[in-house]
């Protein structure tokens, strides 16, 4: 079934209409509803089994109404709520430190071409944990993926959330993450987007507890005719809240990318600090790169900054490496790998880290 999707990844404050960057509208998206999804694996280390509860009804411990600011199209929201074929609840017990990452591994294949996952995560007080979501295709056929995750980080909890998307070149990927942070909590997000035809990602964090932290690091690599559409929003509600957005990307061939990154200091977010940066390397003259780094501020006692840079590879770096005996292609590869590895190195799962780096290396190799 093909449907129209309106207002995917809507920006919090609109700008000039003629640029058509306020939101993404897709006229024909093939959605696969009413199929089962059975390829899901969840890995929790044996040592950690008693520290978590799976499939617990979390509606009694967390107020799901807190996740209302959904800037995703109504259609996709509807699909997540009515047609989910994979539902997960993860509860991490208070004061528990998990030894190994919890891994949600979603493979899409010929028998499971569609994944509509609806996840709720509750990290209770002072727990520590790493959670990995991995989406990949084991087929060249079209895959449809629509994810809605609601993540609640309770007082003092420290969570690292790693999401890696590497679906095949024909697929559609929609990924919405609504995040709520309580007092003294900390969330590190690592987002890696290297696959699918359309990749629409949103992280929408609300720093509601005093002294809460949210750091978002993201890497995207778009070649061929891929479309990357990003909407990162960090709302500073409470005082002494800190956040950062650090995005690094490469665009090649005829890829298109829209990056929307919003830092919003609400009134009352006294002594808060936020930093945002985006660096894009362009490898072809047919790419299109839009960057919209928003800085919204209703509080004077804050420090905020953003920066964005777009362009080809730094000539001085290239020159230096070539003077050391690398040819141009190798030098370019090294610079891009270097730019990415900073972020990818933070992925605590060695296999996954290697898999991503290999994928990027292979594609850079095949390029030019």
């Amino acid at each position, binding site marked *: 079934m093909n449907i129209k999707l309106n207002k995917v990844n809507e920006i919090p*404050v*609109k*700008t*000039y*209409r003629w*640029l058509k*960057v*306020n939101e993404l509208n897709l006229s024909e998206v093939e959605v696969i509803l009413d199929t089962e999804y059975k390829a899901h694996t969840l890995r929790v280390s044996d040592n950690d089994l008693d520290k978590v509860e799976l499939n617990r009804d979390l509606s009694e411990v967390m107020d799901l109404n807190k996740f209302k600011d959904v800037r995703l199209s109504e259609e996709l929201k509807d699909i997540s709520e009515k047609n989910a074929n994979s539902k997960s609840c993860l509860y991490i017990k208070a004061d528990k430190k998990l030894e190994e990452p919890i891994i949600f591994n979603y493979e899409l294949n010929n028998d499971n071409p569609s994944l509509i996952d609806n996840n709720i995560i509750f990290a209770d007080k002072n727990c520590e944990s790493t959670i990995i979501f991995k989406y990949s295709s084991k087929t060249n056929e079209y895959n449809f993926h629509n994810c809605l995750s609601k993540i609640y980080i309770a007082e003092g909890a420290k969570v690292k959330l790693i999401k890696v998307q590497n679906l095949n070149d024909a697929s559609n990927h929609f990924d919405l993450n609504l995040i709520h942070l309580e007092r003294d909590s900390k969330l590190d997000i690592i987002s890696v987007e290297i696959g699918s035809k359309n990749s629409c990602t949103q992280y929408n964090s609300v720093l509601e507890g005093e002294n809460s932290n949210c750091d978002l690091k993201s890497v995207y690599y778009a070649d061929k005719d891929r479309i990357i559409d990003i909407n990162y929003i960090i709302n500073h509600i409470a*005082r002494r809240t800190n956040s950062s957005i650090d995005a690094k990307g490469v665009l090649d061939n005829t890829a298109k990318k829209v990056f929307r990154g919003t830092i919003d*200091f609400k*009134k009352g977010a*006294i*002594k808060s600090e936020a930093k945002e940066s985006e660096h*894009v390397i*362009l*490898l*072809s*003259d047919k*790419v*299109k*790169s*839009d*960057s*919209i*780094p*928003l*800085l*919204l*501020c*209703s*509080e*004077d*006692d*804050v*420090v*905020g*900054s*953003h*920066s*964005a*840079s*777009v*362009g*080809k590879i730094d000539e001085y770096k290239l020159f230096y490496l070539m003077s050391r005996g690398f040819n141009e292609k190798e030098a370019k590869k090294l610079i891009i790998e270097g730019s990415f590895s900073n972020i990818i190195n933070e992925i605590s799962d060695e296999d996954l880290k290697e898999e991503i780096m290999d994928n990027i290396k292979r594609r850079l190799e095949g390029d030019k």
Partner: protein
Amino acid sequence: MEKRKKTYVHDVDRGVYDIKNEVKFRYKVKSGLDENVVKDISKQKNEPEWMTEFRLNSLKIYNEIKLPEWGPDISDLNIDKIITYIRPNTNMQGSWDKVPEDIKNTFDKLGIQKAEKHSLAGVGAQYDSEVVYHNIKEDLIKQGVVYTDMETAVKEYEPMVKEYFMKCVEPDDHKFAALHGAVWSGGSFVYVPKGVQVDIPLQSYFRLNAPGAGQFEHTLIIVDEGAKLHFIEGCSAPKYSVNNLHAGCVELFVKKDATLRYSTIENWSKNMYNLNTKRAIVEENATIEWVSGSFGSKVSMLYPTSVLKGKGAKCEYTGVTFAGEGQNLDTGAQVVHLAEHTYSTISSKSISKSGGVATYRGLVRMGKNARHSKSTVSCESLMLDDISKSDTIPVLDILNDEVDVGHEAKIGRISDETIFYLMSRGISEKEAKAMIVRGFVEPMSKELPLEYAVEMNNLINIELEGTVG
């Protein structure tokens, strides 16, 4: 946590800017907008037929286009209550002696005559819908420089006006460009011939005196190959309790190797909707420099646009926005790079206080052919209290890979350490704050001729008086 002490002080008298004259007019149209009003304006001006047609066509476009879905709320602006054309009780004069006393006094208090004597090569003064005074130095006339009001230009320089008028900003660009096309009146026309260097600035001053009126002046400047010009635009109005509207249009054509500096000190009263459109088309190796100070108005939506069309074209934008109580100032720069080796530098500073909203909204577009081009954008915002708002909304739109584009923005308050340091040197807190704000806007003051830098400092003093952050 310690609570910082804050005192909020209301705005003070804006002095000379608030002088109201009794509204004396020779003719005015009824408020609102329809075909008859537009025909009436055209008839009053005794215009050629193509202009009447142009106006009617623009009106049609105006009725078709929707209001923007972004930016400040302008729903309070009711065009049916705006008088689009009000002719002062005088003809255009070439000597101040012939200008009616009350109008002359107003411009005198605004310092126009004094500036004309000392630092300007030519002056135009518009009062409500029509230009009341226009004069230019003899030697410039001899060199072929044309500086006159738009009405005269339509008649005396018809072929040139027809070629350029609303070709840079077309009526279908946005709703208020269409409105402007329909009811435009007054403004200045400048032509600088090839190779002529106008060393001393020309200035047009726009004053809106009548309550509930609109001002729609059209400024058309053509700087021919290798020529140079500095043009200054000033605007002000006294405050009324009803809404006034300013929807002017500025079209600048900067030819090969030419340089144009366009400076604006805008100080509309706080009942004004300032929905102005400014655009420049910049040819090969030419330069446009914008210096833009936005202090007044209730709502401003102003984004000077530079279209870098020729190889080696350059654009520089320096802007300061100061939003006080009841103001929503949405300003910024747009640069469209269309050719190789084009360069743009945008520097924007904004200050908001007492509930004012200051927004930087900008665009840098690197087109397909803009190879080896470079753009640098830097925005700084200063908030003087926690009831104000300051947003930065830039867009970088890149369509080729041989470019270098950078954007930076910072937001924050005056740090306690800086104030403490200055106070430890014997400066009062109030003076320390004023010093910091003046230092903050210094890059802008530097760009202005001395008299205007002084005026800007005075404006900042007016705005800052009594503020203790």
